[in-house]
């Protein structure tokens, strides 16, 4: 690849990604949002997290795994319980990885 081509992409990618992050945040922070939009936005975090978990667990690395041979799926259930009981993100992440290693070993 030519160096100027790569640099053009690197610089352009930085600007484009920054624009989609900054413009909506800064623009909406200046407005007084109507109550209905506040209520709508209040459901966004739980919805985004549900979408991320389902996507990462059922189709890790872009490949669907059969549910009964899916260590991500088996590990996610006790991981959820550990967070529910313990309320620590770092602790849950570490324990979750251990669950995952165990199920990956068991399921081959």
């Amino acid at each position: 690849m030519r160096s100027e081509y790569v640099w053009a992409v690197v610089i352009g990618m930085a600007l484009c990604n920054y624009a989609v992050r900054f413009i909506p945040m800064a623009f909406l922070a200046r407005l007084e949002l109507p109550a209905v939009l506040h209520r709508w936005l209040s459901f966004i975090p739980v919805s985004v997290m549900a979408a991320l978990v389902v996507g990462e667990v059922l189709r890790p690395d872009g490949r669907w795994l059969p549910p009964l041979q899916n260590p991500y799926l088996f590990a996610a259930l006790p991981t959820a319980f550990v967070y529910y009981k313990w309320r620590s993100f770092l602790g849950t992440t570490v324990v979750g990885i251990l669950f995952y290693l165990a199920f990956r070993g068991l399921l081959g």
Partner: protein
Amino acid sequence: MSTTLPQQALCLSAQDRLVRGVRLGFPIFLGYMPVGAAFGILARSWGFSPIQAVACSATALAGAGQFIGLSLMKAGADVASVLIATTVVNLRYVLFGATLSPHVRDAGVAGQAALAFSVTDETFGVNINDLRRGTGDGWSMAGVGVVAWTGWVAGTALGVFGSGLVGDPYRFGVEFAMPAMFTALLVAQAEDKRHVIIGIVAAALTVICMLILPGKWYIVAASIGAATVGSAVYR
């Protein structure tokens, strides 16, 4: 910090709040290192110089967008097509920015300009959870952003310069770091019956959207769908 009483949180200095954010974001660091390393290795083998690969991660911080850009470049796409594709992939940041916007009013435009730089799926999850609980602020968000950025850039540098040093990080199961953190964040967001039900609606919509939409569009589609159901049903 000898006590964790909530009212003490308000008394923390800016530095303490920044450090608190770094701690909160540490799982992201664990998850970003190996993926950043994978990007570094791939970028290097497909014709990026070491400095270009690290600069790309340091300035774009774009995860999937970077990988898609890379594969389009390898296929010989022109600059504009690569930029359009990576931007479209990351349009979900618009939704994240909108959701964060009421919480960053006090930061001012300069603060928002700094905080916007580190918005990703992972930092959004950690920060919105913290902000909704009333424990987060601009400083803790900055701490989360710094530790996430460091993981992504250090991972890329590791992939570029020393992929032989650590061997295969996947033998440690690091590929489950992000799913584990998202799972914890999902449980944290399910704070009452309404949010549990909307989370279930979102999960069901996600499966449908994953089957019919390309790439990561299921995240935006399922979230917009579920939030719309939520705001229509619970008035």
